[in-house]
């Protein structure tokens, strides 16, 4: 707008920026504090001296973690989970979304299958029945317990399906006339033009697998099988015990006990677990927003 701003308007614009700055700070300050605590001396932390900069800079908490095996054991479980779980999610999303995106005249059983999947978001069986099925299929203490029960994320599938439905009919007709089979149409025509949507659901799926902890807690009896977030949950809920366990088990770690505290080692582990999310953050920004808008605000 070319009209010159009035004085009240200027006051509003400035106070608006200040207010937004405070809001933004409230959103990231806790994480800066976490990072500062993880690099600080334990006495400074206990005295409440650490805000946004490390006090008595030290990497001892990180050293302690690298010497305890549990963090890395669970990290490996999480990495395995993501590398099996995400591709399976994607494959099932694509294979399910394509047939359901067809018109009723092209795929007569479409409605039946749509309802088959949608019913599962309407009614949740609940904790115990789900647990019993996972146990009966022999998945307790197996990585597959974290992958198979949620192998098809229904909402992501609906997002992809809606996108595929919005593709121009001419595109698919051309493929059909050229004699392409459904499989060829899907992989050579539909998928290449759906990359943004596929990227979105891939990120959904990654964040979901990385952040899940509850399934790990109930399906895994052996702590060795805990994914990272489940392991972290035990650290968060009972930080002192984590420290005791790790220093009791191997004598060589007891030397750290005077130098680290539950707060500093907890902060270090939480920060390490945030790193993958921070790494994909730029992509999340790019795709999540477009995907979300495609998926929910249809014209």
């Amino acid at each position, binding site marked *: 707008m070319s009209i010159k701003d009035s004085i009240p308007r200027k006051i509003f614009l400035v106070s608006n920026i200040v207010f937004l700055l405070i809001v933004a700070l409230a959103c990231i300050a806790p994480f800066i504090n976490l990072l500062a605590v993880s690099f600080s001396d334990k006495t400074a932390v206990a005295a409440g001296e650490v805000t946004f900069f490390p006090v008595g800079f030290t990497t001892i908490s990180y050293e302690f973690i690298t010497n305890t095996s549990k963090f890395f054991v669970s990290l490996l479980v999480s990495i395995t989970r993501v590398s099996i779980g995400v591709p399976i999610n994607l494959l099932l999303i694509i294979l399910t979304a394509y047939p359901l995106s067809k018109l009723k005249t092209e795929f007569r059983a479409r409605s039946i299958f749509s309802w088959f999947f949608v019913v599962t978001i309407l009614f949740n069986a609940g904790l115990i029945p789900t647990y019993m099925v996972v146990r009966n299929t022999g998945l307790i203490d197996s990585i597959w317990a974290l992958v198979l029960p949620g192998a098809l994320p229904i909402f992501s599938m609906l997002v992809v399906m809606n996108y595929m439905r919005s593709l121009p009919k001419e595109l698919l007709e051309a493929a059909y006339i050229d004699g392409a089979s459904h499989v060829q149409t899907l992989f050579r025509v539909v998928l290449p033009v759906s990359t943004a949507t596929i990227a979105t659901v891939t990120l959904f799926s990654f964040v979901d697998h990385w952040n899940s902890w509850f399934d790990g807690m109930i399906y895994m009896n052996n702590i060795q099988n805990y994914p990272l977030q489940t392991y972290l*949950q035990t650290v*968060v809920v009972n930080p002192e015990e984590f420290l005791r366990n790790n220093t009791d088990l191997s004598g060589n770690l007891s030397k750290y006990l005077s130098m680290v505290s539950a707060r500093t080692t907890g902060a270090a582990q939480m920060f390490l677990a945030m790193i993958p999310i921070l790494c994909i953050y730029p992509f999340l920004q790019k795709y999540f927003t477009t995907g979300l808008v495609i998926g929910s605000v249809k014209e």
Partner: protein
Amino acid sequence: MFVNLKRKDKMLRELPLYLMLLPAVVLVSIYSYGSMAGVVIAFQKFVPAKGMFGQQQWVGLQNFTTLFSMPNIWPVIQNTVIIALGKLIGGVIVPVVFALLLNEVRNILTKRIFQTLVYLPHFLSWIILSGILLNILSPSEGLVNILLSKLGIEPIFFLGNPDVFPATMVMTDIWKNFGFASVIYLASLTSIDPALYEASVIDGANRWRQTWHITLPGISAIVVLMTVLGLANILNGGFDQIYNMYSPVVYSTGDILDTLVFRLGIEQAQYSLSTAAGLFKSGVSMIFIVVSYYLADKLTGYRVF
């Protein structure tokens, strides 16, 4: 275009589509429908050793009678609805206000930076966020109470005072999600036709009138939609969040259906009672989900599927 195909050709043409659906159908049948069949546990005196579909003793509605005679069941339902409603209302108002304010910022880069910062918590798990919040909300050494004491305010027991706990849950949930939720409102704000604003300026409308008569009506459909869809979660108090931050001290106001189901089922091994509580929750939730989807379609023409 397929109308002239013969019946058999049509079947052949559709066959690959069935095959594509097969893996998902198998897995969903086992893990979703199998579990749904498992809700029969709620009507049995379930003994795990006899197997899920084994010879269990049927007890009719006895588990439900027990459930609803528990002294804490109604408070728990009340807590759930209060916390969920708080999250629903705050979770719409705060992002809308934030989007309106952010929309007034003209510099694109500044706008982008603010956005980037505020949605960080959305992508982190409640485990990490609880770990951080347990520290910064602590009454003695927490960052928040240190700040409050500098302003001359007495320390607040955010997680230990039953009167404050539900509000803490609502506010921390809004903190986690408002930035991301505002994305959708910003998208609809930018789609408002600029010609409307230009016309209103010529008619002599000031900023407030523009906001009231153009901006708000412009995003009302999406606000209604998000509110209505949120109704589906009326019995979801937020297990991940509350389970990792509550304690017996705040059970009176902070215990929700999901945490009750968990404690009954996993910690106390009362499988039938826990399943009954879960089934009650799912049954009521289903009504809310169907109603919310119906309203979303009726009011805004949005179809979830």
